[in-house]
């Protein structure tokens, strides 16, 4: 008999999970928050997202060609990096800066290490931090979201006064004109006595605040994160440890000195913590592989975020915290290796991460 049958090693069944499916499901989980940011900020957000994602995929393709590797643009990882990077940037950022960020993320932080799976640092965060250091003024010019009247997405400038009497005139056609510090930046400048004047938790939850596109709706980000948790794309360890640490840290400092430090709700709902805990710190490649290591990673990222927020040189610390913890991943992997079934001691993993 010469029927050519397929002969391969066991197992002969797979779970159906594939790298592209995982990457695109994370993109899907970010879609509501992305759509909301576009609705909130209009064209400045849309253009930043579109250009950043485009250039990330473009550089990924280019690197693949240069390294003579099978095309990886459709696996979704570059698009996801682009989306996360874009959501961490201020809407209205000059588009050429977005392209530079994409270059740093994909080429410098990922491809030179060997591409998907080999990069020690989160590419999107490396790209963002590069831009923050290289273009500090552009990276801290935050648009105020439009006071939505439900009329037009890209409509006429709307001028209103907010609770503090600041002009929050919103000119989408006049991007450079109207910006304001983010709530977290205000807190940093003026201390917690302004907390009472800041937008309430409901506004934070809904995201009707100024900030980067991905810092706006804590609720939609949380929903996306829980979607990933339920679909078992991510495990609970990192987000729970991260958010729990931030909450605990904020609660303690707030108890010690309520006039300087804001409470846990403010810290959980403002800035990039929600985005970071669910979508950035959970990046497989740059986070620990074992449950205990993931918890340590989340706790460390939470502490660093709060230290930077409260006492560091920048108002927001999520991207620095994640990058610093990325550097610790090999240690966490070495320390938290599982003990083989029935073994008395853990195995050594050689020099491998």
């Amino acid at each position, binding site marked *: *008999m*010469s*029927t*050519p*049958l*397929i*002969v*391969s*090693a*066991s*197992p*002969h*069944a*797979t*779970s159906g*999970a*594939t*790298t592209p*499916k*995982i990457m695109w499901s994370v993109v899907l989980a970010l879609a509501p928050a992305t759509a909301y940011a576009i609705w909130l900020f209009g064209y400045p957000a849309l253009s930043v997202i579109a250009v950043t994602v485009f250039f990330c995929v473009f550089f990924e393709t280019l690197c693949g060609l240069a390294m003579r590797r*099978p095309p*990886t643009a459709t*696996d979704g*990882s570059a698009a996801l990096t682009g989306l996360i990077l874009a959501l961490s940037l201020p809407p209205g950022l000059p588009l050429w800066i977005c392209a530079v960020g994409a270059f740093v993320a994909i080429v410098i932080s990922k491809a030179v290490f060997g*591409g*998907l*799976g*080999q990069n020690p640092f989160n590419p999107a965060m490396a790209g963002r931090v590069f831009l923050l250091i290289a273009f500090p003024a552009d990276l801290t010019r935050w648009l105020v979201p439009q006071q939505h009247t439900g009329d037009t997405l890209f409509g006429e400038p709307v001028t209103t006064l907010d609770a503090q009497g600041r002009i929050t005139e919103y000119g989408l056609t006049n991007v450079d004109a109207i910006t304001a510090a983010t709530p977290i930046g205000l807190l940093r400048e003026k201390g917690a006595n302004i907390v009472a004047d800041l937008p309430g938790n409901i506004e934070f939850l809904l995201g009707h605040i100024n900030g980067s596109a991905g810092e706006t709706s804590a609720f939609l980000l949380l929903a996306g994160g829980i979607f990933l948790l339920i679909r078992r794309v991510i*495990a609970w360890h990192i987000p729970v440890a991260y958010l729990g640490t931030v909450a605990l840290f904020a609660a303690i400092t707030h108890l010690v000195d309520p006039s300087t430090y804001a409470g846990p709700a403010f810290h959980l709902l403002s800035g990039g913590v929600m985005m970071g805990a669910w979508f950035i710190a959970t990046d*497989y*490649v740059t986070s620990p*592989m*074992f449950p205990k290591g993931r918890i340590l990673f989340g706790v460390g990222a939470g502490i660093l975020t709060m230290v930077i927020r409260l006492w560091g040189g920048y108002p927001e610390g999520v991207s620095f915290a994640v990058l610093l913890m990325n550097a610790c991943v090999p240690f966490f992997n070495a320390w938290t*290796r*599982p*003990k*083989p*079934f*029935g*073994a*008395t001691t853990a*195995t*050594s*993993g*050689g020099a*491998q991460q």
Partner: protein
Amino acid sequence: MSILTFRGGIHPRYNKERTAALATKPLAAPDELVLPLSQHIGAPAVATVSVGDTVLRGQTIAQPGGFVSAAIHAPVSGTVSAIEPRPTGNGTLGDAIVLTNDHQDTETSYSGLGEDWAQADAATLRDMVARAGIVGLGGAAFPSHVKLAPPPDRTIDTVIINGAECEPWLTADHRLMLESANAVVSGLRIIQHILGAPNGVIGIEANKPDALRAISQAATGTPIRVVSLAVKYPQGGEKQLISACLKRRVPQGKLPMDVGVVVHNTGTAAAIHRAVVDGRPLLERIVTVTGTAVSQPANYWVRLGTPVAHVLQHCQTELTPAGKLILGGPMMGIAQKHADIPVVKSTSGILVLQPKDATTRPASPCIRCGRCVDACPMFLVPQELGAFARLRMIPEARAAAALDCMECGSCAHACPAHIPLVQLIRLAKADIHAAARKKM
């Protein structure tokens, strides 16, 4: 009844509904049977017949080639037409006794102990098991009488019968537990008697409630404990089963008997019952024939030595190019090049897949998602073992406990990058063994 389980493992698609309700039918014996002398772990059996000899059904045609070996019997009456190398299910040629069936099924006479087996001593019973050619019928094919003869310094307090049948698609053990519940329970009691083990446990996955009921009923009035196990692969792995049923953990590199336990498969227990009570040797076994390319899936009592091609013919199954033929289940079964191989003692299933289910996907880079780590029931780091194997880092692979891997396939099943982890770890294990031999 609480549901017991182990840590790690996966939830593959079980696909058992196609054959679970189909009563086992005897399959007509073929004209020619091929009985490899090595159907078990250990030394090959030694043929005791010559070409041209006439044999009766049930007659011994090969004797054990050592202590760890097993006898082979003629599943049909007829003549020995050849003793020559033939293709076997593990991809090699192996010496085999070829019988031409006279279709008379003239049977030799058997003398069992009947229900009075409890009067016999352990050695007598163990000898009956050895003479019946019984090996582990779950797939491992380890000679059963060896497991019934632990070293004198080991005390066995518990015998577990493995009715988990966690391999997807397969329903052979399920049907056996329904149709021969009394034989399974009686087999367990015989094994307990041989080993002097006071406790007997039968573990069955909770997706077989009818088998749980049938076995519980058969075990009524005995001290045997029937436990319901979580539906998770590899629930039937020996160490996982012991962990689930008894909360005992077999130490690394040790055997179940080191924690006072011996595990046998349901099929083995039933075969031991038949060997002791009826004096009948192992001549046939239940084989589940199923898969996406099988139009008439079935559970068959198949004579050992029946060519797979003969079985497939009866299931109206054509092998299509680019399809897959697997002996065993999808997780640990072996893909075959052709169907000219015999059903042997360890053949629990014949799985035929359509081309769309047989495609192997190219591996993409590891994204360190950790799914393989979460899936590994031995708590290894398959991703890392795969990397060590690929780089031929032999000492590192050994230090990372590559030899603990039982090749259950959970890691590769879970891997979204389709990295052939089991294949790589097998390579690492072979490298480790080769390096150890070189040192000696």
